[in-house]
């Protein structure tokens, strides 16, 4: 019976903690420490978290009704908390509205946030709250905590309950805001792509960062760090003998509320698939020189713009496993790619991906086709690695030669397996690549007649990844040639004859 009542209380909102419940809770805490904290100018929520208390109580406290447990006067809530500088008191300078806010309850802050989320127009069924606190405040907390450890470490209540540490400001803020936000946004909070980010900054925070860099560039506070802000090291002894000056813990100069901004965004979604390129006038990525576009379109834009518009994202990044020239078609199974879409307003689904694929493939000009478009997670990147790692690539080139072909040409070409060629960096890319000699392997070749011509033929070839196909065929003015081997003498003659005259070859990538 009792358990059921408890559950009901915790499920309802707001859990009805009245001010007398709060009073009771405070009275149950060790009074010496409690009074000390109050006198140090620590706000009520910071006190609760210093005692390791968790849960929805943070959400239901009304600042206006908190009393100092000792003398029942108005509490610390009117003054800025020395530890959290108002974060857990809901006092801040709102960078959006450009004015100071002083809210009494977590619900009021949640209202501000929920309004913003609604305005942004995201589709979501869950949200994840992210909080960013200035390092200055974390330092203050560290100082206070080490002070507490030293002063109360030996007391039994400390060792029983909270030797593990206090509740962090981030967690206390989340305890405050998550329940109201769940109610206002009508969904649960969970780890998900839709993020609500709360960022607190402080004008004095830069000093804190400067101190960090004094640690030799490392901002990791050492666990045994004592009294960072005062620079005093022997904290423990002076605390124990009572001579420690508490006012040194919290310098007055830092006593200003924080700046607060809040926004929401979605972490990127990834679409994976394969593309085919039918056009010889479409580059893979957007190619613009001096305000002039090269080619009539790009694969990246054809796919990216459609996907971006459909999910209402901010921008996209196109990643492909390898690339081909603008005047080379990509057929066969297609080239794997991943499209990263940032900050989508809609949540894409499998059906959604299917629809986009159809839309792209039904385009009138049929420049590009997409296969197997689907949402991918990190496994998508493995597919890409595989695509790049495939060491053999297959091509078909339409070639013209100046002397008519003979049967033995076909046989000789087919007989060559794993032919080694040496390619100097092609002239057409030499302006942006290092002049090197690269040895590549042509695994196999097959010539195929083209109806009605004795000088045109289709050359099918399978080569090592990274081979320049065009240069292999036309020889690049002698800069690409087979590695000399007396067994290949015949082939060399044939290739040499061809390379002087091969022209206008049309290459198609097929792997």
């Amino acid at each position: 019976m009792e358990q059921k009542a408890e559950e009901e209380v915790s499920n309802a909102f707001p859990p009805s903690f009245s001010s007398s419940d709060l009073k009771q809770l405070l009275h149950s805490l060790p009074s010496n420490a409690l009074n000390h904290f109050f006198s140090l100018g620590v706000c009520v929520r910071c006190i609760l978290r210093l005692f390791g208390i968790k849960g929805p109580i943070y959400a239901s406290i009304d600042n206006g009704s908190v009393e100092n447990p000792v003398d029942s006067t108005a509490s610390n809530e009117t003054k800025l908390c020395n530890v959290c500088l108002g974060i857990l008191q809901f006092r801040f300078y709102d960078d959006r509205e450009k004015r100071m806010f002083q809210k009494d309850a977590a619900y009021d802050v949640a209202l501000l946030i929920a309004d913003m989320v609604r305005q942004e127009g995201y589709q979501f069924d869950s949200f994840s709250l992210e909080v960013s606190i200035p390092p200055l405040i974390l330092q203050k907390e560290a100082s206070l905590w080490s002070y507490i450890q030293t002063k109360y470490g030996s007391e039994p209540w400390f060792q029983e309950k909270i030797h593990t540490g206090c509740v962090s400001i981030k967690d206390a803020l989340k305890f405050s805001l998550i329940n109201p936000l769940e109610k206002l946004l009508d969904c649960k909070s969970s780890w998900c792509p839709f993020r609500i980010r709360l960022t607190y900054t402080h004008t004095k925070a830069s000093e804190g960062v400067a101190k960090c860099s004094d640690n030799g560039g490392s901002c990791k506070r050492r666990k045994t760090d004592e009294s960072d802000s005062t620079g005093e090291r022997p904290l423990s002894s002076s605390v124990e003998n009572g001579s420690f000056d508490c006012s040194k813990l919290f310098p007055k100069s830092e006593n200003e509320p924080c700046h607060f901004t809040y926004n929401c965004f979605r972490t990127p979604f990834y679409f994976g698939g394969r593309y085919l390129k039918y056009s010889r006038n479409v580059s893979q990525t957007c190619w613009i020189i001096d305000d002039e576009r090269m080619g009539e379109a790009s694969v990246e834009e054809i796919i990216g713009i459609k996907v971006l518009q459909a999910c209402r994202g901010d921008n996209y990044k196109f990643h492909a496993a390898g690339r081909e020239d603008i005047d080379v078609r990509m057929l066969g199974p297609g080239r794997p790619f991943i499209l990263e879409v940032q900050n989508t307003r809609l949540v894409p689904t499998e059906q959604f991906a299917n629809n986009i694929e159809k839309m792209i493939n039904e385009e009138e000009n049929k420049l590009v086709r997409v296969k197997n478009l689907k949402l991918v997670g990190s496994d998508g990147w493995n597919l890409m690695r595989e695509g790049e790692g495939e060491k053999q690539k297959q091509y078909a080139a339409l070639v013209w030669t100046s002397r008519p072909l003979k049967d033995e040409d076909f046989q000789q070409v087919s007989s060559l397996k794993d032919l080694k060629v040496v390619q100097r960096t092609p002239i057409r890319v030499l302006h942006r690549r290092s002049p090197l000699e690269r040895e590549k392997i042509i695994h196999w070749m097959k010539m195929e007649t083209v109806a009605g011509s004795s000088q045109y033929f289709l050359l099918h070839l399978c080569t090592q990844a990274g081979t320049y196909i065009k240069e292999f065929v036309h020889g690049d003015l002698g800069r690409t040639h087979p590695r000399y081997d007396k067994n290949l003498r015949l082939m060399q003659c044939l290739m040499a004859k061809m390379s002087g005259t091969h022209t206008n070859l049309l290459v198609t990538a097929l792997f």
Partner: protein
Amino acid sequence: MSDHITEESNFSETKEKEKEKEKQKEQDEAEDEELRKLLLSDVQNLPSTPPSAVESNFAIYFALDFMKPRHDQYVYRHANGLCVIGLAPSHVAFKDEGGITAIDFNVGKSDRSGVKVTGKRKKNAQHFESNTALCKVSTKNDSYIVRCCVKGSLLEVNQQLIKQPELLNASIGKDTLLL
């Protein structure tokens, strides 16, 4: 009894798999056929003699009578700014009996064939003016200086010409490359 049932279910499983395989085969064949059609789609309207690779990728210039009568050279300029310099077929050297017999890149202050240019920024490339000597070609009785014709940095020379100068006689052998 159970054996009989498993046998039957195995049998129907294999039949299904066979059907799937056939379907896949049909699909593959259809795709192959489509691919073939695409590959051969370029075949319509092929010119009987298409332009050469050089003609398609470079702008071809000639420097006739460069600094001396009948010293004719060509410059192939690529869209990326690189140039290939060579002897035009009408160069006086080809008229000599026996054609070209030797090529020496050791002219001016350095041996051009010893140039070692490295990296994307093309370190060590020597800067040349249009009248800088590139090499000396010799025939049986005469020798001729080949000059740069354009202002730029020398990236590489055609090393094959040192060992096989007769290549120049046979076809348009490239001489040098410049940036």
